[in-house]
């Protein structure tokens, strides 16, 4: 199926997360990909090498997307299997989503976050929460509470300004 020449003799199924993936290979392709090799092999590698880059290319029906930061194109991704820069993830977001789904446990990062970023995120959330409370207090004409909320908001804003500039994104 992969070389689309010889009949498939090796049929491979791998379960990744809760998804089942199947690949059919002829003897030659199987050997080339090391499917029979005792050193082991993984379907994800195989899919990445062959299917993944196609998926990206197809997602944008003909017209070529180019990363505005580094000039990387889909054709480059197809060739290299790697992206050009961190901005490419934005430029090719649409095509990448399906790929990430087949490759990983989820499509949202849940692991480690740089501390400065985490602090700024927490502060921004606190700021939003305080602003909502302030609105309510004003509507309820509870001016005493509104005044103290205003102070708290000011402190939170100062803290955000104090964080490293890189934390702003």
């Amino acid at each position, binding site marked *: 199926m992969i070389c689309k020449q010889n009949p498939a003799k090796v049929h491979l199924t*791998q379960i990744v997360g809760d998804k089942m993936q199947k690949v059919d290979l002829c003897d030659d392709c199987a050997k080339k990909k090391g499917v029979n090799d*005792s*050193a082991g092999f993984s379907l994800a590698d195989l899919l990445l090498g062959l299917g993944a880059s196609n998926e990206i290319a197809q997602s944008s029906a003909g017209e070529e997307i180019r990363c505005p930061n580094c000039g990387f194109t889909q054709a480059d991704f197809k060739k290299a299997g790697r992206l050009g820069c961190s901005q490419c993830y934005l430029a090719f977001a649409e095509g990448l989503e399906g790929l*990430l789904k087949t*490759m990983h*446990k989820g499509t949202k990062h849940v*692991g*480690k976050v740089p*501390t400065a970023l985490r602090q700024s995120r927490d502060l921004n959330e606190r700021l939003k929460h305080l602003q909502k409370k302030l609105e309510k207090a004003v509507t309820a004409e509870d001016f005493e509470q509104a005044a103290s909320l205003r102070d708290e908001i000011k402190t939170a804003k100062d803290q955000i300004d104090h964080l490293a500039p890189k934390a702003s994104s």
Partner: protein
Amino acid sequence: MTIHEFLSLPAETTRRAGPHDRIVMSSRVRLARNLRGLAFPGWAKKPERIKALEIIRPAVESLPQLNGAFSETMDNLGPLDKQILVERHLISCEHMAKSAGSGLVLNREESLCVMINEEDHLRMQALRPGLQLRQAWLAIDQVDSELERKLDYAFNSELGYLTACPTNLGTGIRVSAMLHLPGLVLAEQINQIIASVNKLGLAVRGLYGEGTEALGNVFQVSNQMTLGEIETDIVERLNKVLLQIIEHEENARGMLLEKKPKFVFNQTGRAYGILANAHSITSKETMNLLSMMRLGVDLGEFPGADRALIDELFIITQPGHLQKKFTEKLPAEERDLIRADMLRERLRQVGRPTPKPPPNSGAALDKRN
């Protein structure tokens, strides 16, 4: 100081002990990180790669964990130096091919190694002997947390750490262990094990990682998925699977000894016979036979040898290490002669194997170590 002067002797490194080191040769956790705004090393032009290196290298060198480290750019290392680093599992085959614009920082204990401008701007790894994945994770997590204060990482709150290859996206973590599994290979259970490990979304690879052969019955098991799961869960999951593989390996050894002791002693005895008496031997044959001898040592067949000696031979008979003493590159046939000379010499102190009658149960075998 050259890398040769810096690296500890294999005789020392192989004496570093760790839990389950009878089967788990080493544990490793690596993190992939990139700088915001700069093209990934594979796409960046040379000046941009050099710029990244100049930002990253001093930041890495300034870490307390890397005090007194060996730090060098790849163009200042010779092909033999690089080969030796690969044979020690300190750099990847991919990094070996790099030159100007790439670098390496390695700590004194050889337990922390940072590759600069490999596939990603930063590939930092913590290494530990035996099964110590948690310790390796804690060590590298700390290095990363200190580096993030000095470097502007490419990070996105949805996708996590942004990496050159989407397979590393998110946590950028690769947790792996190197296992010696002669029992499962001899019992012909290894393919079954590999298949079930693959089903769990984990990869099984050969001695030098991606796309390499399982020489000497050494396998690398690692996580594949990096996005949608937290680091400690990935570490714990792999740890659990590794403990199961260890159990299967011990069971396979116990079963072989009980049901086919002659088959096992034939393998270990022949391995010793060839290694101790050959006058020409390839690196591949050496590794496969040393694997059998290592099994023999584990089974108590070689009172005059210990695992560290076999592990040392495993390293020093590889092409790079073998040629270290020689100024120029030797042809393969000549290496085979020198390798055989070295093995005969080193194995002179090791007496012939004395197979012990199979123990009453596999349990006695498990308790050793």
